[in-house]
């Protein structure tokens, strides 16, 4: 048994996982239309590599990575590209984004998937392959895995943590994946261990998933890679990367720093599975497993094509008629969407249909009484009541002084607040505003620099001009006669009026 070290704070909300784990993962039928956002990952959107009217095959790249901080997008089935346009995409702020819209032909014709010769390739080639296969972190941040693995933190990785904690209520896609396809996950972990060159591998799973634990233990034994399976006590948010690392290794990664700087790399179990498929089968990320739960008749996990609409998924699980809303993600970190007519994206691990019974409407918030319960619950060791004070007053600098940037937005503070203040909403907003401000400041700095350089240049011209005038005292001024100047001016005026006339007639 590995010694666990614990982390500050945490809560024990009702898990609501058994509803969706009694049925196996089902392959969702092919939808007639797929909407594939070009940005399903952190970083830059992919660049479309197909045109409207093109016929695409399953597994064909439809969006190529724009930069290192980007990932490819693939067609999940065969069909025709009918549009490349803006469409509503799942996001906390009712966002729309450019999507490739494919009308499927039902034939599901695929390109040839060839296994990637991992052993013969260099590390850089493997990472390029992962990027081309669209592999991104499925733990929530959808960070391109190749970028994560290629970043040099000047420190060898000693421990690879595989996060199978899945601590947020309702979500069970990782749990079902580990239960049903443990061998694939373990093989993916082996690839990751090789890529990280990590000595120790810890697979962490919460003790409320005994079936997943048992399946993974058997798979690890069969694999013989010596991976360690650690049973975590159920506690939210033990699946937060920094919290999990603290829990397992007692390494506390400070705010603004990354775990690899301390020799630890953390990947989600779903990511390990995508890596297995990308390398061993040569298959890009075209589907994902999503938990459809809440106010539906048959809550369960579906393996569905990316781009399939949430509405179709909810119909498969038979949504109850008294549903009053939908949450993408879990109840604590997820966000409400206005309409389920949005595509399934790589980041979406769960969709919850809500009802008044399951999610009673929020009571109005009362004033903060500074009871300090949020401080006790905060897993990032912050002072939510103070950050709230400053965030509410829009004093971003002060909120930043209280390290609002280190808030992991887990919502534990909201959960315990006796005044029912949606604290983490304020922090989310403050973080976004701080990021915008940082961008604006960078732009202002660049503008200032350009302005100052221009001033210097003009001053230099001025002084050079004075010097040259002083040197040319004997030279007469330009000898254009008054007539010539008048002629020139007339020509200029004529040109101007012609240009004006052209402009007015064309507009």
């Amino acid at each position, binding site marked *: 048994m590995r010694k666990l070290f614990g982390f500050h704070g945490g809560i024990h909300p009702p898990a609501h996982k058994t509803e969706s784990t009694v049925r196996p993962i089902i392959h969702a039928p092919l939808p007639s239309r797929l909407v594939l956002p070009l940005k399903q990952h952190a970083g830059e959107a992919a660049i479309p590599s197909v045109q409207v009217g093109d016929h695409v095959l399953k597994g064909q790249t439809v969006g190529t990575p724009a930069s290192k901080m980007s990932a490819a997008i693939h067609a999940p089935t065969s069909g025709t590209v009918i549009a490349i346009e803006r469409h509503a995409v799942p996001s906390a702020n009712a966002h729309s984004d450019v999507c490739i819209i494919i009308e499927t032909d039902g034939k599901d014709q695929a390109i040839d998937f060839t296994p990637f010769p991992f052993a013969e390739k260099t590390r850089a080639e493997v990472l390029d392959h992962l990027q081309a296969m669209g592999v991104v972190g499925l733990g929530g941040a959808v960070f391109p895995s190749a970028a994560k693995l290629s970043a040099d933190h000047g420190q060898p990785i000693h421990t690879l943590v595989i996060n199978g904690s899945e601590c947020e209520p309702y979500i069970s896609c990782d749990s079902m994946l580990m239960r049903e396809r443990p061998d694939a996950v373990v093989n993916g972990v082996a690839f990751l261990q090789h890529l990280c060159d990590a000595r120790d591998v810890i697979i962490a799973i919460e003790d409320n998933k005994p079936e997943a634990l048992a399946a993974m233990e058997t798979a690890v034994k069969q694999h013989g890679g010596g991976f360690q399976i650690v049973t975590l006590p159920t506690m939210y948010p033990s699946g937060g990367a920094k919290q999990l690392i603290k829990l397992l290794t007692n390494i506390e990664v400070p705010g603004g720093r990354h775990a690899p700087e301390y020799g630890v790399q953390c990947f989600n179990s779903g990511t390990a599975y995508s890596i297995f498929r990308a390398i061993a089968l040569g298959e890009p990320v075209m589907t994902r497993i999503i938990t459809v739960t809440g106010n539906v008749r048959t809550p369960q996990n579906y393996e569905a094509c990316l781009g399939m609409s949430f509405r179709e998924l909810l119909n498969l699980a038979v949504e109850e008629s008294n549903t009053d809303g939908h949450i993408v993600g879990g109840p604590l970190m997820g966000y409400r969407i206005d309409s389920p007519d949005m595509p399934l994206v790589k980041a979406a691990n769960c969709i919850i249909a809500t009802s008044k019974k399951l999610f009673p409407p929020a009571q109005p918030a009362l004033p903060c009484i500074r009871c300090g319960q949020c401080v006790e619950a905060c897993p990032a060791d912050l002072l939510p009541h103070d950050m709230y004070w400053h965030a509410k007053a829009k004093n971003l600098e002060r909120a930043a002084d209280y390290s609002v940037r280190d808030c992991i937005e887990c919502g534990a503070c909201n959960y315990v607040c006796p005044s029912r203040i949606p604290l983490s909403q304020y922090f989310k907003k403050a973080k976004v505003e701080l990021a915008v401000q940082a961008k604006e400041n960078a732009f202002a700095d660049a503008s200032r620099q350009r302005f100052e350089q*221009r001033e210097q240049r003009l001053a230099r011209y001025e002084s050079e001009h004075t010097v040259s005038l002083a040197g040319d005292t004997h030279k007469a001024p330009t000898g254009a006669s008054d007539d010539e100047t008048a002629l020139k001016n007339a020509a200029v005026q004529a040109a101007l009026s012609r240009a*004006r006339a052209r402009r007015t007639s064309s507009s």
Partner: protein
Amino acid sequence: MSADALFASIAVATGVLVRRALSHLRYDAATLENKINATLPQTQCGLCGYAGCRPYARAIATGLAGINRCPPGGEAGIEKLSRLLKINTTSLDTSRGVTKARAIAVIDEVHCIGCTLCIQACPVDAILGAAKQMHTVLSRDCTGCELCIPPCPVDCIDMRPLPAGIH
């Protein structure tokens, strides 16, 4: 030591002290100007009545101008300045202009006659072109100051909302 020498040395010592104090003051004024300049949006539009953000920052630092003359900074900018200078906020002096969402200048390239007047007017060198050649705005660097619009003899510059992808 004679009284004269004593007085002389006192005078010299006082002189040195005063000089030091003054240099400190000057130093403070310069840093304050920098701090104020860092708060200003660097649009360089001149709406405040000064020839750019730094001259305005200097005017604020020396007490010659109020903090409410910057329309691009808007109320948020005034609040930042008031926090920096520890003085009360005042509402924006709308005779200087109104706060607008940031836009960028776009040259209608069909109608541009290549006169270079806008290039000379741009305070941040964000317009590219040469005499009798078509000009274009580097949208990434355009601050939206609108200073290029009045000099254009053929009115071919428009302000457009910020396209996605440019912060």
